């Protein structure tokens, strides 16, 4: 089955509006956040309209319904990523998920498998989003562990030539992105995971840019922890997922403490509920979880493989057209080999912010700047880039609009 993007666009109310005095909306910023289908918007508002109550509390029908919806969403997430249901923790964002695991490790006492001290190593990569870099910098600073990283090649790939020395016997954590939000590069996990496990380290995967776009099966990948956000996967904001292997979640100390996450409490201490509750203190973002459930159901109905094929075809089309423009330099892989649908580029002397502004005047939404990956920008030798990121509702017509917008901008700023 091929994907009918024009039919899909009809599911997304936002495509009915126009931009900047009647222009057709060309939305090429799904890497920042995706648009939402009607079914997600309804699931979120229906929760408030019909079922609103605090989950896991209250002896009344609404509380039961709310709990069913919330736990149902957890099951949908688990099925979507090939996990067991109790391994899925709801957070408010992927950023919180990554902070959760980093802070929880920092809380691990001596004797706990996650305890870090001077002499231990944390490994990241140069292509991390700030959300998967700063929590580890901070954890290293708090524990005395050292931070090292895989560099990025000029082609925008991870340099794994030093794999065995960068991940070594002292490494306790390897945290990396599945797909770069700037370069579009999809990282080769197999050899990294194999090496990490060889030395007894855990692998934390930032899957924000992969889970919405391709089949990600945590069991097949054999990773240990994973984070992704709802809002990049046609779901609501305010909901993220933290996944961990059951045995590891059992040993990982909590991050946020309070209501719902306990087993027993006295005036001097407390014991923890088993995962996932141990990591979900307080009344959670229930309507947003309902929305995320609807979002993943929506993606599953279309088929994540179909979405991926559609994006590969579209990215390939756009890469070819962009490559043909003089003075346009793609920052990242120029072929479709292990590459997703985020394309960053610079364009002659036109600063990305100015290009983005011009494109906006044509109804074209792109991201400009350093994309929360400042070290990567420095490494690639650019101050900022313009990024077009594609999703299931994009069409060749959108790509063509971007191309002519770029050429028009060249004429506009040359005046």
């Amino acid at each position, binding site marked *: 089955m091929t994907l009918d993007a024009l039919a899909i666009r009809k599911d997304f109310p936002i495509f009915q509006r126009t931009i900047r005095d009647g222009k057709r909306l060309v939305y090429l910023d799904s890497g920042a956040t995706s648009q939402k289908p009607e079914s997600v918007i309804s699931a979120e508002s229906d929760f408030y309209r019909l079922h609103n109550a605090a989950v896991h509390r209250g002896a009344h029908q609404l509380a039961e319904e709310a709990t069913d919806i919330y736990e149902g969403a957890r099951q949908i997430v688990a099925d979507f990523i090939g996990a067991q249901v109790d391994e899925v923790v709801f957070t408010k964002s992927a950023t919180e998920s990554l902070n959760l695991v980093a802070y929880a490790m920092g809380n691990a006492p001596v004797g706990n498998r996650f305890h870090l001290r001077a002499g231990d190593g944390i490994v990241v990569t140069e292509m991390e989003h700030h959300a998967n870099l700063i929590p580890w910098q901070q954890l290293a600073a708090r524990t005395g562990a050292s931070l090292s990283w895989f560099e990025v090649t000029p082609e925008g790939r991870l340099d794994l030539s030093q794999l065995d020395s960068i991940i070594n016997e002292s490494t306790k954590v390897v945290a990396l992105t599945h797909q770069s939000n700037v370069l579009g590069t999809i990282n080769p996990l197999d050899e990294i995971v194999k090496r990490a496990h060889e030395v007894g380290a855990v692998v934390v995967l930032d899957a924000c840019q992969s889970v919405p776009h391709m089949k990600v099966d945590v069991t097949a990948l054999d990773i240990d922890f994973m984070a992704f956000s709802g809002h990049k996967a046609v779901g609501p904001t305010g909901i993220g997922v933290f996944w961990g292997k059951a045995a590891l979640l059992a040993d990982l100390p909590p991050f946020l403490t309070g209501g719902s996450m306990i087993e027993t409490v006295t005036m001097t201490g407390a014991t923890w509920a088993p995962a996932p509750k141990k990591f979900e203190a307080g009344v959670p973002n229930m309507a947003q979880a309902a929305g995320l459930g609807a979002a993943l159901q929506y993606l599953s109905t279309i088929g994540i493989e179909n979405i991926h094929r559609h994006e590969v075809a579209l990215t390939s089309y756009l890469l070819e057209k962009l490559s043909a423009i003089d003075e346009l330099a793609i920052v990242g892989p120029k072929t479709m080999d292990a590459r997703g649908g985020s394309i960053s580029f610079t364009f002659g002397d036109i*600063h990305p*912010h*100015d290009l983005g*502004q011009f494109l906006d005047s044509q109804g074209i939404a792109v991201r*400009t*700047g350093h994309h929360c990956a400042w070290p990567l920008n420095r490494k690639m030798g650019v*101050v900022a880039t313009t990024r077009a990121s594609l999703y299931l509702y994009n069409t060749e017509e959108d790509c063509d609009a971007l191309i002519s917008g770029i050429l028009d901008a060249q004429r506009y*700023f040359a005046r």
Partner: protein
Amino acid sequence: MMQLDNLYQEVILDHYKNPQNKNLASDNDAQVHHVNPSCGDEVTLGVKLQGDKVSSINWEGVGCSISQASTSIMSDLLTGKSLAEANSISDQFLQLMQSKGSIEGDEEILEDAVALSGVSKYPARIKCALLGWMAFKDASVQAHSKEEK
């Protein structure tokens, strides 16, 4: 395109292509480095004072046409003014930026800087336009307090 033309006025593109005072001096009374964390634009700006007068504003930086042109225009406009005048002009420029298009700006006072009035209709760009001005404010306060010591 009219609103966009209003943003990218000829004067702005001219200053972007030929920035004024973009040549950092080594003997400034104060020098500051400001960034716009949302887009990565950076400016390093130095100020020299002669008594109460701004005798030099010089800078280096990378950024979009709005941030570069605005810094260039500001450095031209405020050089030779007294600190009090420079602050008053800066305040008027800030007001113009925050006006959402409701005021045009006094050309007698703001000179080329009125060309940036179109920025006030693009909330995301106001920080770009203010980058150099905020750097000047910071540097001039530092230079002034150094002089008083």
